[in-house]
């Protein structure tokens, strides 16, 4: 219990630091940034009890909103992913509700995991940019940024996941 608590607290703080100090300042092509802080939501233990992940995801998003003056854009989209990730576990990872408590990401085949990461990152980024632009006329700009940032986040996240996280277990 304690071990899991400290691991996730460390992940929360570490990801916030990395996001603010490094990943928010990359600006590839002038405007593309990755958002690997989302890994917190993807990796958080899969349990039946879900209050913790909902509250923590909200706080994670809000922390980034405070730092980047983005209103509640990160909070809203991160919380959305935190709530709906179970549906994608069912659809993409094909795990039923009884197995959540024992769900370990590293026991699942790579292609399914990558698909799962990609879909969640895409939805999160699409929501985030839609709320940021808040303008239907900017649809193509939103889509362009979503696609570019999704690829970037996906690469950073999977790279980080396979180097740092999955080997430890």
């Amino acid at each position, binding site marked *: 219990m304690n071990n899991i608590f400290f691991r996730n607290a460390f992940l929360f703080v570490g990801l916030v630091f990395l996001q*603010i100090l490094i990943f928010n300042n990359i600006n590839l092509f*002038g405007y593309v940034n990755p958002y690997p802080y989302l890994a917190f939501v993807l990796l958080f233990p899969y349990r039946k009890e879900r*209050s913790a992940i909902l*509250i923590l995801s909200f706080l994670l998003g809000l922390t980034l909103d405070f730092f980047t003056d983005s*209103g*509640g*854009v990160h909070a809203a989209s991160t919380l959305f992913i935190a*709530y709906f990730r179970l549906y994608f576990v069912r659809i993409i990872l094909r795990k039923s509700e009884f197995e959540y408590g024992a769900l370990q990401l590293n026991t699942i085949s790579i292609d399914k995991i990558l698909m799962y990461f990609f879909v969640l990152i895409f939805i999160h980024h699409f929501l985030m940019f839609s709320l940021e632009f808040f303008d239907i006329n900017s649809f193509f700009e939103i889509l362009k940024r979503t696609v570019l940032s999704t690829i970037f986040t996906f690469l950073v996240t999977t790279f980080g996941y396979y180097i740092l996280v999955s080997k430890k277990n």
Partner: protein
Amino acid sequence: MQQIINFVIRNRYLLLFLLLEIIALIFVFQSHTYHKSKFVNSSKNVIGSFYTQSDKLKNYLSLAKENKLLAEENTNLRNLLFKKNLAIDSVIHKVTDTVYHQEYHYITAKIINNSYAKRNNYLTINKGLKHGIQKDMGVILPNGVVGVVQDVSPNFATILSLLNENSKINVGVKNSNHFGTLAWDGKSYEEAQLLDFPRRAALKIGDTIVTGGKSVLFPEGIPVGVIKSLKLRNNYYENIVVTLLTDMSNLGYVYVINNIDKKEIEKLEKNHE
């Protein structure tokens, strides 16, 4: 009653999700409303101190650039002084006014957090209420406009960047009295758009755009950008694109402008409304 409790318990995650999501969306809507102070902003003390520390690391890398900017500004000021002497020699009466009545008062501040790649950009500076910064003060560089102060805490302040949907800056063309508005379409941080320019203004590609005298935020005549392209349709200007003089991706020290007459002017103007 029992049923309500059962309903709440059964749907507790959904209800918690909805509650938090609504809070987050309220913050989002608030951020899209013009001129409203936001609860979620980076002028908060903890965040400002954090950015101050991280900025210290970056400082050494930008010393050369800051030096060059200072040298350039010194040259400009020297040139102005030289011109002023000439002016005193020819028209003496006009000078006394400016000597005894200084309209603007500048405060130097350092940008500790810059953003330019988002749709709505804000900057954080290391000065706040304690140093005389107040909401709605203009922020400039020696060679261009940066934005307007939005939220202020005792030690820090956030600036609504020129690169923001809520930023509307009154501008004019150099050596003419026509005015328009400078806005940003969210695409490139090197370009902004001009709106509401009258047909009579006779704009040309290459014209210099400067701050207009209609705004109390900025002194008149600070260069903002150069017209890059424009289209005329049905005798109206369309798509006037301005290349900004300020490199918004690379900001160091800025000047916050305190217009000493601002309160008086605004009070007068309110009487007409």
